[in-house]
């Protein structure tokens, strides 16, 4: 049963299994175990980022393709939901149409970019996606009439997903049974399903061909697989799932803007999460996203404390400033690629 749900990909490490179970339980019961707006918000972000990072892993870890446009696809889903809700009014139909059209558009754009760049050489893809994503980000901030520009768009979601909606007049462990709770579980279960779906994809024959291509694209081509077709297909799938994650993120925040969905910083976060968690493992996305989001929320404070502790030493305070968070992540990123290219998951499995 478990084997079927996980598509036969068991964690293969006791520590990893324990971590995964802990994360699953915490996320599943987050509103009850960690009541409070901020913790539930963190839990929802973790859920969404797991899907986003896993969809990126599908591309990077399984396809061996580096993309810098993943936030663009993420943003397409988010803006899709925001725009449809703005124009059609709050409603589940608007959410569904927005998410679906965002995913479809993302897949289409991925198809076009993929056909142009992957046909020639895989590294073109990295460069072209970077250029296209940056151009789109600029365009989104310029077309403020449609996208709200730098300010982004706030929109209304169905009342059933808001705190004012009570579906039962009881409190369970002190938690109100309201729309906010429903919204969290909408996010949680959507993310769970998307994640299991991706697990299924990477263990399907399609996923195995992708792995073969990553190991040796010449040989895969020689055996008779059209490498380009597989890579383009992986790109489209990954883009569509990223867009769905974006749609969930927009629903959760009831807001979309360039900073939350399109920024280069976010792209770098995704890269860090996938590398630190472990490329090409899917579970790495779970570990990476969880650790990263938690660290982002709580470690920055620690960095601040450390910075104040050395306030008298020259240069050190600037280095330990919480705004220099990215500096240390960058260093960590480089070190992990050198020394732990398989990330936390790879390490844990190897130690087994």
């Amino acid at each position: 049963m478990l084997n079927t749900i996980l598509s036969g990909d068991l964690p293969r490490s006791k520590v990893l299994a324990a971590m995964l179970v802990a994360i699953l339980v915490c996320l599943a019961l987050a509103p009850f175990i960690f009541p409070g707006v901020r913790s539930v918000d963190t839990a929802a972000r973790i859920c969404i980022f797991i899907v986003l990072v896993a969809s990126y892993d599908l591309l990077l870890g399984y396809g061996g393709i580096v993309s810098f446009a993943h936030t663009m696809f993420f943003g397409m889903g988010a803006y899709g939901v925001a725009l449809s809700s703005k124009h059609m009014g709050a409603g589940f139909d608007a959410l569904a149409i927005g998410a679906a059209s965002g995913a479809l558009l993302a897949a289409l754009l991925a198809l076009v970019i993929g056909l142009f760049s992957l046909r020639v050489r895989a590294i073109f893809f990295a460069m072209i996606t970077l250029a296209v994503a940056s151009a789109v980000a600029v365009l989104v901030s310029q077309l403020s009439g449609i996208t709200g520009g730098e300010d982004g768009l706030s929109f209304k979601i169905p009342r059933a997903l808001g705190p004012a909606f009570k579906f039962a007049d009881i409190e369970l462990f002190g938690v109100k049974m309201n729309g906010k709770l429903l919204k969290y579980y909408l996010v949680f279960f959507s993310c769970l399903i998307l994640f299991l779906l991706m697990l299924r994809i990477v263990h399907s024959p399609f996923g195995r061909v992708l792995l073969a291509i990553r190991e040796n694209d010449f040989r895969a081509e020689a055996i008779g697989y059209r490498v380009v077709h597989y890579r383009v297909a992986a790109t489209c799938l990954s883009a569509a799932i990223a867009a769905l994650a974006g749609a969930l993120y927009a629903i959760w925040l009831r807001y979309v803007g360039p900073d939350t969905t399109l920024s280069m910083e976010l792209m770098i976060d995704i890269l860090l999460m996938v590398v630190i968690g472990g490329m090409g493992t899917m579970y790495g996305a779970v570990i990476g996203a969880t650790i990263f989001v938690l660290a982002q929320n709580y470690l920055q404070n620690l960095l601040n404390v450390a910075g104040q502790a050395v306030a008298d030493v020259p240069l050190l305070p600037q280095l330990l400033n919480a705004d220099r968070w990215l500096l240390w992540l960058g260093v960590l990123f480089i070190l992990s690629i050198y020394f732990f290219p398989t990330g936390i998951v790879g390490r844990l499995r190897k130690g087994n």
Partner: protein
Amino acid sequence: MSVAPDHSPTMARLTLSERLSVYAPVLLIIAIIILGFLAIPSNSSWLTLTVSGLAMGMMIFIIASGMTLVFGLMDVINFGHGAFVSVGAFVGVSLILALQHLSGSPSLAMNLVALFIAIIGAMGATAVMGWAFEKVIVKPVYGHHLKQILVTMGGLIVVEQLIIVFWGPEEIYLMRPAALQGSITFLGAALEKYRLVAVAIGLIVFLGMRYVLRRTKIGLIVRAGVENGEMVEALGYRLRIVFIGVFLAGSALAGLGGVLWGLYQEVVTAHIGNDTMILVFIVVIIGGLGSVEGCFIGALMVGLLQNYVAFLEPKVALISNIGLMVAILMWRPMGMIPVVKAK
């Protein structure tokens, strides 16, 4: 990976269309200039825009040339190239600000001395940085594209953050040296002096680079190495040393580009390098990865197109370059001047 088209072994004269296809990239620049002339109502605006387009193109070329050569020679793709641009801009701008008595003086000679010192300082700093970057970031991941892209991107993040640590998070505004401010009027068009200087420096760099590549032994080694590094080594040349040299030179050129770009924008931020990289990537892709000539032509096309379109329809300027890239890749999937690779 697709194989370069085999050269025809016959010595038959080239047909007209074959000869045209050799010069097609150059003709494309002229075509863009003519299209710009037709689309832009005022001739003097057209001339102004053409000069700024050329200036922008030259700066992009200076930045991109090192990157494309590094790729051609060692198959190393450096996503952190923009870091050199940023560092070059900050070092150069700091020097110009420090040399206020030279750069603020109304004498052109004094200004040029200040500019020269800034450029030398920036190029020196970025060359040293290039050497370190090659050793620490690039060398451990030779022959592994995926890791190269990731690690060099990581290097870029770290360098950008270090710039903020040293220079602070605020953007630095600056004035160009006094004599390079303002513009001259030529045929009724206002041409910014600074842009003319940028065009001149760009041309000097391009011609100098062509000279080195065509007329010196180092140039021969580099050109031969781009095509078949293994054979160059079998002749007895240590390609690794040549590569480090090219990497240094490419980093220094990016530093030069950074100074010029910073003065062009009259403001520098830590992201300046990464911002230029978008155009740089487009340029090296449409030029043909590894080709200096292709890079030059591509840079001019991008610079011109960007300026013309920004005048006609500001919001689509950046998208127009993406469109240009798509069009060129449809025409020549490996770029305008594809580099012949032995393997």
